[in-house]
């Protein structure tokens, strides 16, 4: 049976080409290729280390807050500063609003039209001749909720802008906190928006996902993958740094293990890069883009944890924190994401109560001449890490490993498929549906290829 190609896969962030081989109505092999290269990390070399947060967030428009937060963490380590308690809370609030926004938009703007018939107008027409199973009334109700959800996502971004100045691409995060003041007026603005969004999420979001789950029960058995899950944890508490959502690793649906960052490597045999070594950590030398590489089929590299491909995202966090452990599938990812949205709303409410108004949201600092830092946090889609080093106030190297790099990695040097490639295996596909089933699996991971494609230039991964 011939290999079928979907390019572009729509309703995701940035160009993705999916090639799948179908036999007897099931996908038996898959290759996922990202088709945009910008090389953001190489641009950071030689720049002022203080600019890392504002520059790196321009990698991604949907998860800009995540890059700023994690770059801030790396800077904290490199500059030897810590955020003020209020500053840390404000950073967490900012990040929380961005995540809520992302999760709402992912489900209601991107994923929903895989299962629900959209309105009869462009861009929702033409639509594939595929199995839309919802009764008309439920369908109409969900479309109405989609309109409201779009406005709730706007509200969430407003909340982010209350402390972040604008969204996307906030501008206030600095290593010691946030430049915006924690005034009563600002806190009230955030709080009222959060209240509204929380109520909406509680009332509709989870119920809507469950409605779809009821009609598409077979998707509990589709898109399983390896069952290797990883999270760096997120939302450090002030002073203690203890994370509200824990870091951890689960191998092959087993127990939660400790994570050791030193086991991370990146491999490039099937990516469009040339390198003296195909696997690096620690590594010396440079990786250079080479679009003509015959084995390559993507700009994404293959990061591995102890040679294992691992998946990240709300489902992985759900498993590691014990919030959601039903199983691993397309629907489980969607449900875990909705439940996490509510959990983050509640966490944010807690931080708001802990903030003492008008306490300093940052402290002035002067960065030392040289330093190194690592920032690790979970972002919307999974584990995100920034590694950087600077000498004499110039960045000497910067490395970013993003969630989508993990999820959508190509085959590694041993030919082992990436997590999503594996998850696609066994997916039943109907004739003439233009592989909408494959699209459903891919979208459940919330892919974002603007982040995923990056250029490794670090000499080593410090911890």
């Amino acid at each position, binding site marked *: 049976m011939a290999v079928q190609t979907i390019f572009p896969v729509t309703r995701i962030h940035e160009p993705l080409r999916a090639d799948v081989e179908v036999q007897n109505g099931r996908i038996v092999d898959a290759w996922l290729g990202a088709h945009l290269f910008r090389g953001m990390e190489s641009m950071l070399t030689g720049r002022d280390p203080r600019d890392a947060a504002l520059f790196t967030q321009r990698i991604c428009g949907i998860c800009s807050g995540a890059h700023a937060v994690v770059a801030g963490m790396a800077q904290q380590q490199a500059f030897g500063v810590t955020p003020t308690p209020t500053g840390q809370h404000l950073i967490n609030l900012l990040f929380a609003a961005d995540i809520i926004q992302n999760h709402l938009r992912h489900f209601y703007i991107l994923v929903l039209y895989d299962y629900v018939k959209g309105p009869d107008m462009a861009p929702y027409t033409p639509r*594939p001749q595929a199995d839309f199973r919802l009764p008309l009334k439920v369908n109409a109700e969900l479309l109405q909720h989609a309109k409201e959800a779009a406005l709730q996502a706007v509200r969430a971004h407003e909340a982010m802008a209350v402390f972040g100045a*604008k969204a996307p691409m906030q501008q206030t995060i600095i290593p010691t906190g946030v*430049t915006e003041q924690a005034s009563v007026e600002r806190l009230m603005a955030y709080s009222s928006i959060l209240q509204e969004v929380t109520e909406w999420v509680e009332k509709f979001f989870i119920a809507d996902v469950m409605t779809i789950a009821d009609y598409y029960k077979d998707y509990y058995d589709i898109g399983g993958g390896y069952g290797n899950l990883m999270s760096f944890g997120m939302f450090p508490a002030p002073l203690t740094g203890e994370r509200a959502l824990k870091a951890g690793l689960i191998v092959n649906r087993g127990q939660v293990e400790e994570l050791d960052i030193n086991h991370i490597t990146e491999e490039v045999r099937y990516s469009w890069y040339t390198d003296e070594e195909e696997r690096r950590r620690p590594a010396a030398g440079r990786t250079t883009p080479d679009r003509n590489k015959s084995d390559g089929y993507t700009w994404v590299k293959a990061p591995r944890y102890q040679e294992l491909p691992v998946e990240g995202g709300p489902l992985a966090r759900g498993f590691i924190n014990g919030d959601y452990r039903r199983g691993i599938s397309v629907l489980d990812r969607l449900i875990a994401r909705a439940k996490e949205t509510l959990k983050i709303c509640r966490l944010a409410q807690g931080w708001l109560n802990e903030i003492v108004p008008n306490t300093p949201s940052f402290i002035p600092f002067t960065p030392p001449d040289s330093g190194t830092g690592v920032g690790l946090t979970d972002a919307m889609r999974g584990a995100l890490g920034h590694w950087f080093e600077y000498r004499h106030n110039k960045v000497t190297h910067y490395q970013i490993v993003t969630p989508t790099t993990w999820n959508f990695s190509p085959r590694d040097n041993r030919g082992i498929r990436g997590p999503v490639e594996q998850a696609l295996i066994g997916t039943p596909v109907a004739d003439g549906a233009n592989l909408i089933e494959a699209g459903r699996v891919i979208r459940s991971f919330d892919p974002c290829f603007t982040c995923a494609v990056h250029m490794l230039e670090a000499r080593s991964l410090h911890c």
Partner: protein
Amino acid sequence: MLTRREFLKLCTTALATATLTDRLMPIMSQGFAAGKISKPPVIWLELGSCTGNSIALDNAVNPNLNQILTDMVDMRYNWLLNVVQGSEVVKVLQDTAEKEAGNFWLVVEGSVMTADNGRYNHIYMRDNQLVTGLTALQELAPKAKHIIAVGTCACFGGPSAAYPNPAGAKGVWEVIKQPVINVPGCPANPDWMTGIFSHLIMYGLPELDGYNRPKMFFGQTIHDLCQRRQQFEDGIFASFPGESGCLYKVGCKGPVTHADCPKRQWNHYVNWPVRAGAPCIGCVNPGFPDSSMPFYNHLPDLATPLGMLNIKKFGAAAAGLGAAAVGAHLITGVVGKRVGKHWLDGTNPNEPDPPENLEQLKQELDDLIRQQNALISESQALEQVRIKRRLPKTFRQKVVDFFRPGQKHRR
């Protein structure tokens, strides 16, 4: 129907209270209903971008995304929204380009990757051939009615084109011959996008500046509109981002950035960077981000009546020469006794970039002295000019003056 003048006034004064489209949407739907105007088909191409401008458009409030899609434009191709995928969506794109040739709008988000003949960015597959963003753009551009570049990447290259620009990113107008309307910003404010869309629907092309930016949004500098402008005039400067006072010394690029952020603000008008204590990073500027970096260092030069002046000269001149040589702002400040004690506090060399070692400190001091001397000699030269002018005119001079065109009564 709203006249164009009224519309522009709405756009330039759009504040939280009088939003652009609260008044505009009814007028537009009336226009659609009466058949005076029609919904334009739109092809939204995303090239080397971060999707930030699409997200910003999702953040639009008046009108919101849903209103934009139902009442404003006919979004035929936008891969973030299209339901069909793969070959079916490519067919939509091609059909629109053929059937609506000369009628559709081409909105481009993200810079054009030109390295390796554009092969760093493929955007779809046609007849089993990968199509690069560059090719798609060059094919679609001649057929489009309007070409709108949204976001600094699409306009001028933006962050994708930052040094060393490994993917050869360029702005749209650098690779096609057709005129392009540039709506920069990182991301572009949704009001700017919807404002341009409505202007194009109702009145055609808006007035553009030298960089093809619509003057109604990019006509004034942030500095001119800034709510912290008074503190600049008074010489009250913040010494760290987040403090009160003008953020010029901690890197604000407001004086060289043309945008209406201070008036319009962001995200349903809740905030904007300078209000939040974060210096403007000049994200609508053609050279962004290279021209703005380091973000937290002050601008290298500031144009004054006495030529280019930077903040170090500013300090040196104040110490060495007194206020007279420093330009009109300061003179009025001193005369009005507004500068006062803030002057000293504000210009203390409490800068975010301290010298790294003794060598550099020495060099900086030398630089300072050199600049100070230059200023002194410049001001002395000025004095001499003034003295010359007071000398009585010779007969020859009078004759020359008599025949000189233009102003004759200059003394």
